[in-house]
């Protein structure tokens, strides 16, 4: 196993492996579900950025027919824990359907855990102010905290996370991702630096329908983690990126902030920049920094966030990790490297590098039309009004 990983991650046996993590995301803003071929091709083109110790994908629009169900993807590090877990799920939910996630034997994917998915609805009477989403988050936290060998790696509706130890192209092959379609795909190739490469530690990280893929490291992990614990989020995946998924869930779903504002909390303007802003912007940014100092993400990062109907790219304030954006028609791409975008969309013209801390957001806008440069041309009256 060791030597096989080494041969794949370092075929020329170089003294130094120059890896870095790769991220890629694609959203079709018309809402059309497409195959993941181009996303898999793109992330594979950045093979050198990963080292075979983590690869993964998030797909939205994944489970038509089960849109109303919470789709739990559960990773059984201990296969014997499955029966007890299913009994547990039946006690806490109505289990609409459960099945082993189809996989195929793939070279380079060794000793995979047992992987099942369950479609669940909440049949418990909940008190006012405590909704189904809150209930599901608490259930996920409880399962992952108990350390029975079962981990929920995906818990949203009509979406799912597929991840594991391997290169992303191997993980795609393993999970038969060619069988799925989605309007939003994110992908990750991992180069674990500070923490172990295990199946739960691969990206994307998820809570409900919020997923994050990340290149970099969150130096403020300890502060972020302790703050999130006060709101019931427990970090169990043994790596830093996890805090981002919970932070965005807290800010956007529970505190009701627009995702643009959430981005400002994660990567706020420097104090010296705030000093030069106009009074209104300075007041907002000062307020956000005062209310959420513990959700500021310190350290180098480039992330792609997926949520139902929405994709956001963001880098740290002084852009210590790369990200390039591109748009053509309804499709918006985000990537660690530009070549990957040109590979899957050869005639794309509009590519740009966002500033550090500047979110790039793509939203599904039914009925909207787009220019060839990817600008929103016309938004129908009933469509959600959104800007890039």
């Amino acid at each position, binding site marked *: 196993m060791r030597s096989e990983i080494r041969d794949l991650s370092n075929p020329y046996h170089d003294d130094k492996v120059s890896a870095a993590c790769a991220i890629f995301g694609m959203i079709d803003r018309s809402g059309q579900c497409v195959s993941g071929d181009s996303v898999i091709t793109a992330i594979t083109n950045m093979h050198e950025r990963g080292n075979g110790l983590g690869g993964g994908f998030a797909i939205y629009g994944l489970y038509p027919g089960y849109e109303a169900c919470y789709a739990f993807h559960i990773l059984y590090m201990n296969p014997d824990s499955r029966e007890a877990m299913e009994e547990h799920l039946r006690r806490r939910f109505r289990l609409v359907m459960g099945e082993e996630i189809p996989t195929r034997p793939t070279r380079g994917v060794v000793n995979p855990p047992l992987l099942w998915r369950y479609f669940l609805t909440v049949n418990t009477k909940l008190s006012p102010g405590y909704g189904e989403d809150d209930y599901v988050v608490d259930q996920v936290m409880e399962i992952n905290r108990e350390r029975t060998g079962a981990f929920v790696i995906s818990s949203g509706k009509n979406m799912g996370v597929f991840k594991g130890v391997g290169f992303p192209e191997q993980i795609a092959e393993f999970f038969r991702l060619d069988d799925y379609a989605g309007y939003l795909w994110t992908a990750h190739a991992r180069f674990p630096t500070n923490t172990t490469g295990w199946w739960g530690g691969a990206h994307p990280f998820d809570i409900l329908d919020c997923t994050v893929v990340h290149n970099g490291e969150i130096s403020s992990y300890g502060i972020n983690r302790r703050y999130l614990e006060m709101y019931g989020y427990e970090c169990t995946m043994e790596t830093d990126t996890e805090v981002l998924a919970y932070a965005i869930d807290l800010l956007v779903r529970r505190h009701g902030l627009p995702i643009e504002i959430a981005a400002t909390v994660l990567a706020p303007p420097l104090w010296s920049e705030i000093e030069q802003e106009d009074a209104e912007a300075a007041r907002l940014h000062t307020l956000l920094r005062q209310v959420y100092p513990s959700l500021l993400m310190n350290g180098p990062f480039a992330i792609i966030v997926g949520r139902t109907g929405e994709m956001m790219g963001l880098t740290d304030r002084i*852009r210590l990790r*790369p990200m390039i954006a591109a748009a053509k028609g309804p499709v918006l791409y985000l990537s660690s490297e*530009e*070549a990957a975008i*040109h590979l899957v969309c050869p005639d794309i013209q509009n*590519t740009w*590098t966002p500033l550090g801390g500047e979110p790039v957001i793509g939203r599904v806008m039914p009925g909207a039309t787009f220019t060839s440069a990817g600008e929103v041309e016309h938004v129908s009256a009933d469509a959600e009004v959104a800007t890039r």
Partner: protein
Amino acid sequence: MESDIADLGGQYSIDARGLDHRALALRMRDALRAGASQLSVYNVCGQRYIGTGLREAARVDLYGTPGNDLASFMRGPTIYVHGNAQDGCGNTLDGGTLVVYGHAGDILGYAMRGGKIFVRDSVGYRAGIHMKEYKDVKPAIVIGGDVQPFLGEYMAGGTVIVLRLNAHRHATRQPQSFVGTGMHGGAIYLRGEIAPSQLGREVAAVPLDDIEADGVADLVREFCGYFGYNAAEVLAAPFIKIYPKYLRPYGRLYAY
């Protein structure tokens, strides 16, 4: 000779599709050693280290999107990129020339010690970081568009010129750009104005009185030659010079 390397009387071409960085580098080296005076590489797509360490004085044309660390440690060729370039172009470039008919990513010319880089459009963060010079060996970068923050960070020598001709997104007009943070050698020439708040603490800016001084006009003319600009028009606008105030800005930082 590899079957996918075509030789047409000193003109060679390589199809890079499906080649990893090492396979492509070996084919390029073979072509140059075989006497190529002009080498075209098609379907370039993210391969790293293209041109690294090459010393032959040939013309190399790249079609597609070359990967990170293009022309690193290179000393000889002139590379034309017909497309956009990624991060780390000209990392520790030693000699030769890089011409990019598009934009480039972050840390352009990182630790560059010789040679020239011309980029038609804008570039990312930290262009010219750690550039250096030694006696009469002075590297130069000319950027046609705009730059993102931390231009010339820790710059120790050489020349960076930013023309801001065709920039759609004006990064140096953001509240803060930190131009020349930690800079202690060389000079940055900017066409147009810059607010004091956009400068790093270690630099000062003055109007450039004589555009012909320091070789600035010659570099701009060379840039205009590659990309079809009218040099007289470009040079007619006012320039400012950004220079380091201290030789050792952090000399006392850790000394008590």
